[in-house]
C-alpha cells in the first residue's frame, strides 16, 4: 500500500511538473521576445492620428470617452484609480523610466562645495519617503548617476553602500567631524569658516506633487542636519537659466531623461573644464580624479574599457555625490485595450514609441484601423534639424529611419542596416592608424515615399550633409565633428563606409543613430540644398518637399488640432500579406462609431442660427417701440 501511495505521489508530482512547465510561459509576465524581423515588420494599422490635447484633465476625459487610444506623457499615481475604473483602460506600471529625478547641488558654492556636506545630505535624505509618499510605491530606489535601465553600464546593485534609508546621525557626525559648527543664536549650522548657512531647494511648480514633494523631503533632510533650509518655487526659465549660466543657486530639483545607453555625455556634464561653460556641467563640479576617469570613458575603445571606466566613475561619484539621485520612477501610461492589442514595453519611448505604433493590431488580428494618440502640444516644425520638441519627435520617428535605432530594451536595433563591421588599424592595415572604420550593409528593397529607390548613397550623403551644414549652424553635425568624421562613401549601392579619425567605443552611436535623408532632395541644387537646412519647413510650407522613409508617411494635418500619418506602401518591412488580404475600414472596431450625420451638431447649428434670428428680430422690434 505504502509503495503504491509513493508511486502515486511520484506520478502526481511528475504530471504537475510537466503541466507547470507547459503552462508557465502563459502564466509568466515575461515580455514578448522579438527577433530581428519582428520589430521592423509592420505597420499593422492603417493610420496614426496625433491629436493635440493640451491639459491632462482633457487627456483623461479623451481616454475615457475613447477619443484617443494612447497618450504621450506619464500620469501621476493619483490618476491610476480613474483609469482603473474603466475596464477598457489599462495602466502600464512596469516600465522603469529611462530617467531619474535628482537634486542638483551647486558645487561651487558653500557649503555644497564641501564633499562632507554633500555626503551628509545624501545620508540624511530619505529616499524611501519619495518612493512611498510621492510615488506611492511606483518608483525604484537609486543612487548611481547611471540610470538603472542602462544595464550595460550601471553598477547600482554592486555599489558598496547606498543612501536609500535615512542615516541622520551619520550625516550629523560627518558634519561635526568636518568642522560644521552651530550658530549660538539661531541654533543652525555654520560652515567650517563660521559662515551661516541657508539653503533654498528650488523646484518647478508645474509638478507640485512630485517636484514639490521631493524638494520638501530634501528640506526635511537638511533640517534634520540642523541646516536652515526651505523650498522655493521657481519657474522653469529661471532655474534652467541658473543651471545653464552657472548662476547663483543652492539646490535645484528636476528630472533628466536619457536616450539609449551611451555615456560619452558624462564628460560635458561633470568635467572640470566645463564647469564655467554655458549649458554644460550644471552642478559646477570639479575633481581631478573624475576628470581622469572621464578621459578614460571618452577614449575607451572597447566595451570592456568603457565599462571599467564607467564603473570606476560610479564608485567615485557615489562618494562625492555632486548631485543626489532621488528616484527612478515607473513610467505610468494609460492605454485602451478595446481596439488594439500588442502593446510593447519600450523603455526608451514607452507606449507611444514607433515600435508600438508599427506593432499594434486590431483585436481580431486584422490589418487596418486608426490609432489615435494624444500629444500635449502641437509640433514646432517637421524640420528634423531645427526641431527641439519631443512632440514633434513622436511623429517624425514614425516617418524617418536610422541605420540602427534604440530598441525597446535600449540596445541598438537594425533598421536600414542589415549588419555592420568595424575595423581599426589593428584589424585591417588598410585602415590608417588611429582611425575607426564602420562598414554598413544596408537593406536593398527600400524606397523613399516619392518612389525613389533608397541606396547607400543616401546614407553617405547624410553624413556629408551634416558635416557641410555644421558651419552654417546645423547642430546635428556636431557629434560627427567631435568624433572627427574623415570619410563617408558608398563603395557599392548597398554598402556604406563611415570612417572616424578617432578610435572610440562611442563611435558606433555617432555613426548609427542619425536620421537618413534623401540625397535627391538635400543635395546641392536639389529642392533644399545646404543653405535650406534651417528654412526647410515641410507640411507647414506646402512647397517644401516631405520625402520620408519609414513605416508611415505624412498625409495631412490641421495645424494645432491633429496630424495624420498613413502607412507607406513602399516601406521595406511591410508584412507580406499586408495588402493581399482585405483590411478593415478605417472606422475603428469595438469603439464608439462616429456618425456621419451628427444630431448634436445639427441641433447646435440650428439653435445658434435661431438665436441670432431671435436676437436680431428682437432688436428690430425694440427699436420700433
Amino acid at each position, binding site marked *: 500500500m505504502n509503495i503504491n501511495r509513493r508511486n502515486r505521489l511520484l506520478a502526481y508530482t511528475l504530471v504537475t511538473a510537466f503541466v507547470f512547465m507547459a503552462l508557465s510561459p502563459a502564466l509568466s509576465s515575461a515580455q514578448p521576445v522579438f527577433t530581428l524581423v519582428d520589430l521592423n515588420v509592420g505597420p499593422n494599422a492603417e493610420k496614426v492620428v496625433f491629436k493635440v*490635447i493640451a491639459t491632462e484633465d*482633457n487627456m483623461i476625459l479623451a481616454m475615457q470617452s475613447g477619443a484617443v487610444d494612447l497618450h504621450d506623457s506619464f500620469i501621476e499615481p493619483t490618476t491610476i484609480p480613474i483609469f482603473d475604473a474603466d475596464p477598457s483602460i489599462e495602466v502600464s506600471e512596469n516600465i522603469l523610466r529611462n530617467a531619474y529625478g535628482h537634486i542638483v547641488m551647486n558645487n561651487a558654492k558653500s557649503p555644497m562645495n564641501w564633499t562632507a556636506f554633500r555626503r551628509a545630505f545624501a545620508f540624511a535624505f530619505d529616499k524611501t519617503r519619495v518612493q512611498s509618499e510621492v510615488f506611492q510605491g511606483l518608483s525604484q530606489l537609486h543612487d548611481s548617476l547611471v540610470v538603472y535601465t542602462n544595464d550595460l553600464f550601471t553598477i547600482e546593485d554592486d555599489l558598496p553602500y547606498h543612501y536609500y534609508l535615512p542615516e541622520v546621525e551619520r550625516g550629523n557626525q560627518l558634519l561635526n567631524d568636518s568642522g560644521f559648527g552651530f550658530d549660538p543664536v539661531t541654533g543652525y549650522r555654520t560652515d567650517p569658516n563660521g559662515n551661516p548657512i541657508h539653503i533654498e531647494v528650488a523646484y518647478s511648480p508645474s509638478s507640485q506633487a512630485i517636484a514639490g514633494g521631493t524638494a520638501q523631503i530634501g528640506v526635511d533632510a537638511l533640517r534634520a542636519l540642523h541646516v536652515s533650509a526651505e523650498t522655493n518655487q521657481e519657474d522653469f526659465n529661471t532655474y534652467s537659466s541658473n543651471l545653464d549660466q552657472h548662476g547663483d543657486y543652492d539646490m535645484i530639483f528636476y528630472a533628466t531623461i536619457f536616450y539609449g545607453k551611451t555615456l560619452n*555625455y558624462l564628460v*560635458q556634464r561633470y568635467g572640470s573644464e566645463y564647469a564655467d561653460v554655458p549649458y554644460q556641467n550644471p552642478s559646477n563640479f570639479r575633481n581631478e580624479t573624475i576628470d581622469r576617469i572621464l578621459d578614460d570613458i571618452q577614449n575607451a575603445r572597447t566595451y570592456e574599457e568603457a565599462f571599467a571606466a564607467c564603473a570606476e566613475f560610479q564608485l567615485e561619484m557615489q562618494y562625492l555625490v555632486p548631485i543626489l539621485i532621488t528616484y527612478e520612477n515607473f513610467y505610468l501610461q494609460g492605454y485602451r485595450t478595446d481596439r488594439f492589442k500588442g502593446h510593447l514595453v519600450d523603455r526608451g519611448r514607452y507606449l507611444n514609441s514607433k515600435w508600438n505604433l508599427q506593432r499594434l493590431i486590431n483585436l481580431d488580428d486584422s490589418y487596418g484601423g486608426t490609432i489615435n494618440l494624444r500629444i500635449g502640444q502641437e509640433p514646432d516644425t517637421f524640420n528634423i534639424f531645427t526641431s527641439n520638441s519631443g512632440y514633434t519627435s513622436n511623429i517624425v520617428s514614425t516617418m524617418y529611419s536610422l541605420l540602427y535605432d534604440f530598441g525597446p530594451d535600449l540596445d541598438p536595433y537594425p533598421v536600414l542596416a542589415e549588419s555592420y563591421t568595424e575595423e581599426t588599424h589593428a584589424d585591417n592595415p588598410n585602415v590608417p592608424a588611429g582611425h575607426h572604420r564602420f562598414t554598413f550593409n544596408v537593406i536593398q528593397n527600400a524606397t523613399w515615399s516619392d518612389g525613389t529607390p533608397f541606396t547607400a548613397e543616401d546614407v553617405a550623403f547624410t553624413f556629408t550633409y551634416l558635416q557641410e551644414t555644421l558651419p552654417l549652424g546645423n547642430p546635428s553635425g*556636431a557629434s560627427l565633428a567631435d568624433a572627427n568624421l574623415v570619410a563617408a562613401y558608398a563603395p557599392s549601392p548597398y554598402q556604406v563606409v563611415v570612417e572616424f579619425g578617432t578610435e572610440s567605443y562611442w563611435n558606433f552611436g555617432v555613426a548609427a543613430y542619425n536620421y537618413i535623408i534623401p540625397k535627391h532632395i538635400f543635395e546641392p541644387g536639389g529642392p533644399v540644398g545646404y543653405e535650406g537646412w534651417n528654412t526647410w519647413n515641410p507640411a507647414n510650407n506646402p512647397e517644401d518637399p516631405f520625402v520620408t522613409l519609414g513605416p508611415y508617411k505624412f498625409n495631412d494635418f490641421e495645424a494645432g*488640432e491633429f496630424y495624420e500619418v498613413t502607412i507607406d506602401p513602399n516601406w521595406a518591412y511591410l508584412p507580406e500579406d499586408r495588402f493581399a488580404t482585405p483590411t478593415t475600414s478605417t472606422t475603428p472596431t469595438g469603439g464608439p462609431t462616429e456618425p456621419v450625420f451628427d444630431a*448634436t*451638431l445639427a441641433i447646435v447649428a440650428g439653435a445658434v442660427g435661431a438665436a441670432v434670428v431671435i436676437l436680431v428680430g428682437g432688436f428690430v422690434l425694440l427699436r420700433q417701440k
Partner: protein
Amino acid sequence: MGLREYVIRRSIYMFLLVVAVVCFNFFLFRLPTFLFGANPISLMLSDELRRNLTQDLLEQMYANFGLVMNPDIFDWIYMFWRYIVSMFTGNFGVSFLTKRPVMDSIVERLPNTLLLMGTSSMVSILLGIWTGVKVASNPGSKKDIGAVTVALFVYALPVFWLGMMLLMVFGYMLPLWTETTFGIRIGFPQFGTISYEIWEVARTSPFGALIVAGDVLHHLFLPMITLGIGGYGGYFLYMRNNLIDVMTEDYILTARAKGLDENQVLYKHGMKNAMLPMVTVIALTFGFLINGATLTETVFTWRGLGRFIFESLIALDFPVVQAIFMIIAITAILANFVADLLYGVLDPRIKYG
C-alpha cells in the same frame, strides 16, 4: 476746435502712446533676462543637443535668433534699435518656438480667437443688458436682489473651473448617459476646434465646408458659454446701475406724465440713454478681443492667441509676444478712440474741443 482738429490731435497722441508702449514692451519681456539671466536659448536646447554643443555652434544659434551672448550696453542699444525698426516696419521676425514667421503663426490663430471672443462677448453683452434692463425697473425687489446675487456669484467663479465643469458634464457625462440610455451620443466635444473624425468625412464630401463650419460651431459652444456666462455679470451690473440712474431723470417723469406705458418708458427712453456709457465699455471689449482667453483656450484646447501668448511668454519667445502685444496696444488704443467718437455721434450733447 471741431471734430477734425480733435481727430488730428488724438491721432498724434495715439501714435506717441503706441511708441511708448512698444518701447516699454522691449524691457518688459526681457525682465526675466535682466533679473534672473533667463534665456530663450535654454529652452531650445534638447539634452541631445547640449552634449554636442560647441562654443561656435552656440554663438551661431544666438546669432540666428537675433540674440547676443553676454551682451554689453552697446549690444543692448543695438538690439533695442533693431527691435524698434522691426516693430514699425512690420518685420516681426521668426518665432523661436515654431521657427516660422511670427505673422503666419498669429494669422493662423487669429480667426479662432476672434470667433471665440466675438461670440462669447456678444453672449455676455446681450445677456448682461437683457437681465440688467429686466431688473432695473424694480430695484430692490426680490427679482433684482436675486439677479444681482446670481450675477456676482457667477462673475466670481474662476472661469477655468466653470469651463472644466461644463466640459465634464456636457463633454463626458452627458454623452455617456445618452449613449447608455438611448444608444446615441449627444454632447459636446472635449477639445480642439474641429474633430478629426468629422474632418475625415468632410474632406471627401462636396459639403465639406459646411460640415466643417458646423463642427467648429459644435466645438465653439462650450467655451463660448463658459466665457459668456463667466463674463456677463459685469455688463449686467453696469447696465442695471446706469438704468436705475436714468430712471430717476426728469424726462422719464415727463414720459410717464405723458401717459406712455412703462415698457415704452423703460425701453424707448430709459434704455437708450443708459446705453450711452455701455457703448464705451462695449467698444473697449471689442478692442481687446485679440487678447484671447488663455485659461478657457487651455481648458478646451482651443487654438487661439490667448494660449499662444501664454506659451510664448513661458518660452521667452520674444518675437511673438512683441508682435502680439503691439497689435493689442494698437487695437486697444483705436477702440478707445472709436468709443470716444461714437459717444459724440450718439449723444448730440457731446462737443469736441
